[in-house]
């Protein structure tokens, strides 16, 4: 039979869904332990939340799912949420702005068109936003949070790439580009079109310095040395960015995180202003985040610093080992009601649930092997017969006796 699923979407059958919930559960637990509170935003938002400079790149905007709503005669579009952070920031401005510090987290789907249909167009992410703090410690806390999640999921060998949006912008300014050129170059870097930088009409020295800067990689000490060599003799205009990046990197290094500075590793979001971190497992990017101090005022809120991080749930699902999935704690009970005893059978199932057992009413199609016990219900005495895996039988006259037998 032909698949009827929409191109570029995926189903989550029970096995996948169990993995999904496991990741979600680990992420929720970690967030709650770090003092974050869960929020949920609508799937539909106004397109204009995402269109201005400093939100999404043109490359992303060209792939959003936007349409006219049933009352969209003004021609303004709505969009299926293409990003997790901007809606949470909108929620913060709408209803939490009185709070000086907001630590929020969410598990949400985002929608971005992808032409081949081979990757999913609906993606799930686990995200956390730390609103109201500007110190490097806030950025480090977010990194530590996701590293903790990955560790609990037993996903190891994770690598961090660090970049800094403020530093890139300052470098572009130092190259003598106009503010419009800076924005365009930054967009190209974000969209990953580093080859197209050559077409922007920069002169040769500018282009060479720029590519050398974007190629610069390493730990913080080596990175700063490389920067100094390229931009000798001084670091005027870029010192703040360097200091910020170095302090985030330094703290992460002292905490034993494996990282590399790679300025060109930024992607997709224009809203970043400070440190940007991306998390890789092998070649796959499994998460990322960064500081976005300008976004809240840009969206009409007060001047409030913030940073955020997200893990890409779809990518993590392929990395969780099956053995990480815990077996159900209590062995299940299959309740088999003889004809005429359906009422008693259902009451029994309810009582067993109340007592904390997993119990199913036998519909004739369940496999016995999936249960630790079977419990036959009949109208004549003894009313209940309990059989264990070894086929040993126990008789009971009342439900209380059944519960006592199960406890033994």
């Amino acid at each position, binding site marked *: 039979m032909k698949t009827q699923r929409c191109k570029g979407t995926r189903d989550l059958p029970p096995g996948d869904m169990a993995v999904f919930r496991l990741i979600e559960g680990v992420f929720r637990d970690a967030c709650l332990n770090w003092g974050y509170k869960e929020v949920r935003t609508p799937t539909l938002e106004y397109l*204009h939340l995402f269109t201005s400079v400093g939100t999404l790149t043109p490359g992303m905007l060209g792939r959003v799912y936007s349409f006219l709503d*049933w*009352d969209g005669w003004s*021609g*303004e579009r709505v969009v299926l949420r293409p990003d997790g952070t901007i809606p949470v920031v909108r929620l913060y401005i709408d209803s939490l702005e009185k709070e000086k510090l907001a630590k929020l987290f969410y598990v949400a789907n985002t929608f971005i068109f992808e032409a081949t249909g081979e990757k999913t167009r609906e993606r799930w992410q686990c995200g956390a936003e730390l609103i109201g703090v500007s110190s490097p410690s806030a950025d480090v806390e977010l990194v530590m949070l996701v590293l903790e999640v990955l560790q609990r999921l037993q996903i190891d060998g994770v690598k961090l790439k660090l970049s800094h949006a403020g530093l890139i912008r300052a470098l572009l300014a130092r190259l003598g580009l106009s503010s419009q050129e800076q924005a365009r170059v930054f967009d190209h870097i974000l969209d990953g079109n580093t080859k197209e930088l050559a077409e922007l009409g920069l002169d040769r020295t500018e282009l060479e310095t720029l590519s050398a800067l974007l190629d610069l990689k390493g730990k913080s000490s080596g990175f700063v040395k490389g920067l100094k060599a390229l931009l000798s003799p001084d670091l005027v205009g870029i010192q703040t960015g360097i200091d910020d990046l170095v302090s985030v990197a330094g703290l992460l290094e002292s905490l034993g995180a494996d990282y590399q500075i790679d300025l060109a590793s930024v992607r997709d979001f224009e809203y970043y202003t400070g440190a940007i971190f991306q998390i890789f497992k092998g070649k796959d990017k499994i998460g990322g985040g960064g500081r976005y101090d300008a976004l809240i005022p840009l969206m009409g809120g007060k001047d409030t610093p913030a940073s955020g991080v997200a893990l890409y749930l779809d990518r993590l699902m392929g990395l969780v080992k099956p053995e990480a999935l815990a077996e159900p704690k209590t062995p299940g009970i299959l309740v088999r009601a003889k004809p005429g005893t359906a009422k008693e059978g259902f009451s029994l199932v309810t009582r067993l649930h109340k007592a904390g057992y997993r119990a199913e009413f036998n519909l004739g199609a369940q496999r016995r092997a999936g249960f630790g016990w079977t419990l036959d219900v009949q109208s004549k005495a003894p009313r209940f017969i309990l059989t264990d895996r070894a086929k040993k039988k126990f008789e009971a006259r009342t439900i209380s006796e059944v519960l006592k037998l199960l406890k033994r």
Partner: protein
Amino acid sequence: MNKTENIKIALPKGRLLAETAACLKEAGWGLDGYNASARLYRVKSRNFPRLSAKMFHERDIPVQVAIGNYDLGICGSDWIEELMVKYPSSALIRIGSLGYARSALYVAVSAADEMSTVEAVRQRSGVVRIASEYPNLAEHFALNLRLRRFGVFPLWGAAEAYPPECADLALVCGTKEGLADCGLAPLAKVLAVSACLVANRNSWEAKDMKEVVASIYDEATAQEAESEIITPYSGKRPPESKIFPPGADGDTVRLALPDGHQQSPTFELLSKAGIGLDDYPSPTGNRRPATDLPGVAVKVIRPQDMPLQVASGNFDLAITGRDWLREHLYQFPASPVKELLDLRSGRVKIVAVVSNDMPVADTVGLISLSAGRTAPLRVASEYVNIADKYARDNHLGSYRVVPTWGATEAFLPEDADLLIENTETGRTIARHNLKIIDTLFESTACLIGSRRRVASAIKRDRIGSIIQALQTGVN
């Protein structure tokens, strides 16, 4: 490559017809019946026996070629880009410009507008309204300009009449001189336009079309029009009469009247109602005729576009057809637009039409036929929302609505299975070997307005007296 397979080409009606016909004649195609007075839209070539052609509204051609109904097509590059900008991975390939019918797409403002540069538009707060027959290109322009809030009015025509009062920007096809005549100033040239040859990607790879293509298109000599940078508008003001509405205020009633073939019956009705108009219908294309009604400003736009304009608050009253009102309400059920008065003229039926060869007598027959099909039912219509609702309400199973811009009867049977069309007498339908299987509703001209409360008492009175006058005229 297959050298014997037939080649199908989609040829434009309308503005490109004369020059395209001349080009094909010179190429020795020997097409009989490709002219403006053609009543049947299928044409064979005497000199290329493998070649068959069909005439379409120009705007339909990129879609027809992209979905593979036609191997080749000729149309303006504006409509090619309008498709490609939204669907970059479609199977449409642009072979090249044929060098004639040159014009350009401009983003323009009213020459009286303060926003005389693109940067000024970008800095504007609030929603920037863009009117255009090219909604995809308009959206693309707005997104690339990083306009924060914008709304696009997708139009059937007359975009040049929208700024400044009904839209801030218009994306229009034309020349700078033409824009100036309409009181517009160009802000940016978005695209150089000329007639182009397009092909379906799969056909291009599978079929041998070299000889046919080479007869009209020479890669070596083909020239693409140069793009051009617009200098900021110098700020020359247009004559007062070009700015609508002169001296308008919150008490002015804004009335939209139809262009095209609805003008004569509308003029007649208004005369009967005692409403005098100067320069309507206008031989010079004036879209802002004067009226002797005090406190009323008139603008002439497409009837198809009126319900949306009334909903958006750009007009208080409009004379359009019930078909277009329904089309609007099916798309926007919460719209405040309603019918105020049946004007009883221009009576047409909106009907469901199939080919005479389809063994179906009515909608019930169509439902059982569509249930047994594996391919989706292709429903072609100018009324996409009415067509969609008809298919939905009748559970036509898997179906696709193909939007068209005219000459819809030419789509059956090869390019669509079902049409939702309007008809006065049914003669055109019969001539194309088609039959009506259902009548959806009857449509006449009507006066439409908004449910929203009008704040000004003076304006309420004025609206009331116009409705009353028209009521008298109808009776």
